[in-house]
């Protein structure tokens, strides 16, 4: 289908195929096959009309009229005319992608945190609470939960580090599940309505913006902690900030690929 230019006369067959293309739902293969079938049908009908003595434009108009509305070919209400459903699907895909990547980034931050732990120890990852903000009962609970520690502060740090790593691992697993759901649903929802409900690259751009914002906030907090507390407790923010940078870069690469794919050849 070639784009109409001011020099191109109206072609009812091409116009019909254009309308059919944006109305058809189904997998890309189903859309291509139906388009090919209908185009062959229309060309046959035009040839038959011309053979019967009609002019080319008359034969084209007759072929299109006999084919009927494009909704007759699709056999159902097109997804494009149900923007609510298509939009809901696209928003669900966007949420699954951004949410999944976000949770996975927290999981990656847990990996960074483990690396920092081996180099700099618990106190770099998380700062102890100020004296007077916890009770003897808290100390007893921390010591009981961390039998290898011998003071309330070291037990508190081990407890908090353990909590952070556990939560990061859980977030990472949740992110993987969300991304698996995203990939599955994206494969299933290949209809044009869903694919065109939002501009190409919307999810990737939003994800990149959110990840970049998270990176700025976390890295800013890490720098502030380094300056104010001489690094004590800065590890969590460094880990999260680094993971957010990774997520932002990944989203930007995905955005570039999505925009290239959507750009006309």
């Amino acid at each position, binding site marked *: 289908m070639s784009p109409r230019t001011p020099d191109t006369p109206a072609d009812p067959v091409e116009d019909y195929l254009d309308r059919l293309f944006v109305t058809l739902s189904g997998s890309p293969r189903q859309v291509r*096959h*139906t388009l*090919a*079938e*209908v185009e*062959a*049908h229309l*060309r*046959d*009908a035009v040839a038959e009309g011309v053979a019967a003595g009609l002019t080319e434009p008359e034969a084209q108009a007759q072929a299109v009229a*006999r*084919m*009927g*509305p*494009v909704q*007759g*070919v*699709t*056999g*159902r209400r097109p997804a494009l005319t149900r923007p609510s459903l298509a939009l809901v699907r696209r928003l669900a895909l966007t949420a699954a992608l951004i949410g999944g990547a976000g949770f996975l980034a927290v999981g990656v931050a847990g990996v960074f945190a483990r690396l920092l732990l081996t180099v700099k120890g618990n106190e770099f990852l998380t700062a102890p609470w100020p004296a007077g903000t916890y009770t003897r009962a808290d100390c007893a609970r921390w010591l009981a939960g961390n039998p290898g520690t011998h003071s309330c502060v070291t037990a508190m740090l081990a407890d908090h580090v353990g909590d952070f790593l556990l939560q990061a691992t859980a977030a990472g697993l949740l992110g993987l599940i969300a991304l698996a759901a995203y990939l599955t649903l994206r494969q299933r929802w290949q209809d044009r309505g869903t694919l065109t409900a939002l501009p190409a690259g919307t999810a990737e751009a939003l994800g990149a913006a959110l990840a970049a914002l998270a990176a700025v906030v976390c890295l800013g907090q890490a720098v502030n902690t380094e300056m104010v507390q001489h690094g004590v407790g800065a590890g969590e923010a460094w880990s999260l900030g680094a993971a957010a940078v990774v997520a932002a870069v990944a989203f930007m690469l995905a955005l570039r690929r999505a925009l290239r794919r959507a750009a006309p050849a």
Partner: protein
Amino acid sequence: MRSERLKGHLDLLLLSVLSRGPGHGYEVITRLRDRSDGAFELPEGTVYPALHRLEEAGLLASAWNIVSGRRRRIYRLTLAGETALAEQSQQWSEFSGSVGRVLGTPAAVSPLRPALPGVTA
């Protein structure tokens, strides 16, 4: 004939048309029109969802071939399609015969023409 009335019997008609031999969508429409002496006129595009539905149901199979220099999807009846055609033809014969008896007119024949040996109007 009104296309709404025809749509209720489109599957049976398509199976019957294709029982005479494989064909692409335009051929199917042409055969349907010719064999009904032009009585069956419906928007031609409506035949495609019906063909696709019958293929999904396993009653038809299709393959892409080049015919007259054009790439076309050729449909043919499957064994399951032949069985379904025989059953539906039988049901139609019984139904139309009953209606004919009520109306006092000669029994209607099977749609188009009997497709399989042993299937009579």
